[in-house]
């Protein structure tokens, strides 16, 4: 007869040596992990964290190649290029910009503006060479898609570099800042990935709320080009003269509002500037909420804002702003219903602001700031 083990009669105290403090095996079982975590704790953490980061980097790599493929396919299918554009596009994606030295900050804004505009001009001219039939509308789309693809490429390269350096050096503290910034980086990268489709289809994005508000006010009035990719219309409102400025839509561009304002003040006496723009909301703030304020509401690298502030200061004009709050993702992806629904309310608040802050017979510049993709005037 086979003897069956009686599992109901196990003495756990005896098994784990709880009654016997001198059991050497049990001493090892308790003490070994302590030594293991003291000496190899960081390495274990490095292993766990690097596995998580590796997954995110694979995702970033996917975004990068997806945006590159989308761009190449768009150029091939929509623009009838002379030759295969792949090599040329790959060259564009690797282009870098070296910002001017700022040890002596005197004149740095002009230098930055010059560097950034030179890059834009270079890209524009070379995109034109891809296809002889390309029109301005398509050109701005390809430029924007190129910016998205090269930004995603740059993000991937930097994050991958930080990760590989930390891993190569087996340096856990080096991987910590990477772990901390990754959620923010991923938020931006996912937003950029989602931005490809609306820009390709010529749909308005959240950032376009400013041009949308001002563009509607410009309808049925004669328009003129006042600066590069920037449109001007003049209308009368309750005995005041309004100079309406926005980027020239429906191409995907932000125009050059500061140059336009400079040109405007050289020929006209302005009494105030009102800017309408999208603004990044703080966590907890409601999306599509409207806020009014003082000062130049314009994002970007800072050169446009500097120029607008300089013009306002030299002509002693106040700058008022109305902003529509939104997240990073909402700003660069297809405009949400909530944001689109605020347009009429923003326009009413803009009229209120004009009435409250200016007098009849005064002249006011109204600037609709933001990307005007899918928004004509």
């Amino acid at each position, binding site marked *: 007869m086979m003897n069956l083990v009686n599992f109901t009669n196990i003495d756990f105290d005896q098994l784990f040596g709880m009654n016997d403090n001198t059991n050497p095996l049990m001493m090892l079982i308790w003490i070994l992990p302590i030594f293991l975590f003291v000496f190899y704790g960081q390495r274990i953490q490095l292993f766990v964290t690097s596995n998580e980061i590796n997954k995110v980097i694979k995702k970033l790599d996917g975004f990068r190649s997806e945006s590159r493929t989308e761009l190449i396919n768009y150029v091939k299918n929509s623009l009838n290029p002379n030759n295969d554009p792949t090599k040329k596009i790959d060259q564009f994606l690797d282009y870098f910009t070296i910002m001017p030295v700022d040890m002596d900050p005197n004149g740095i804004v002009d230098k930055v503006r010059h560097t950034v505009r030179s890059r834009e001009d270079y890209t524009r001219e070379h995109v034109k060479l891809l296809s002889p039939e390309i029109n301005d509308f398509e050109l701005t789309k390809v430029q924007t898609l190129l910016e998205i693809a090269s930004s995603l490429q740059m993000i991937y390269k930097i994050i991958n570099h930080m990760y590989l350096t930390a891993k190569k050096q087996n340096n856990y503290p080096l991987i910590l800042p990477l772990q901390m910034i990754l959620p923010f980086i991923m938020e931006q990268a996912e937003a950029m990935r989602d931005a490809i489709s609306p820009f390709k289809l010529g749909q308005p994005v959240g950032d376009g709320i400013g041009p949308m508000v001002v563009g509607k006010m410009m309808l049925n009035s004669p328009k003129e080009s006042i600066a590069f990719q920037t449109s001007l219309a003049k209308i009368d409102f309750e005995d005041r003269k309004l100079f309406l400025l926005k980027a020239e839509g429906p191409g995907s561009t932000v125009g050059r509002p500061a140059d336009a304002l400079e040109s405007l003040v050289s020929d006209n006496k302005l009494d105030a500037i009102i800017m309408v723009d999208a603004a990044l909301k703080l966590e907890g703030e409601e999306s599509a909420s409207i806020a009014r304020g003082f000062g130049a509401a314009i994002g970007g690298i800072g050169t446009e804002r500097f120029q607008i502030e300089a013009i306002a200061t030299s002509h002693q004009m106040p700058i008022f702003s109305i902003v529509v709050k939104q997240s990073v993702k909402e700003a660069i992806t297809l405009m*949400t219903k909530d944001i689109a629904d605020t347009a009429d309310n923003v326009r009413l608040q803009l009229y209120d602001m004009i009435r409250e802050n200016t007098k009849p017979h005064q002249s006011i510049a109204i600037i609709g700031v933001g990307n005007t993709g899918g*928004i*004509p005037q």
Partner: protein
Amino acid sequence: MNFSKTKITVAFTIEKCPKCNALQKRKFSEGDALFAASSKCTSCGEITSIEKIFGETLDE
């Protein structure tokens, strides 16, 4: 098993009739641009203009 629903964003176009102010919602079609002339108004036959283009996120 994956229980999370995939979210997709669908683009819509709102057309507004300048005569009777009737609003009509339809799916976005390529070439639509804000303020551009669009289809005929279903109520009065006037040519509508595109008032809004926006995206709505739906669970798949």
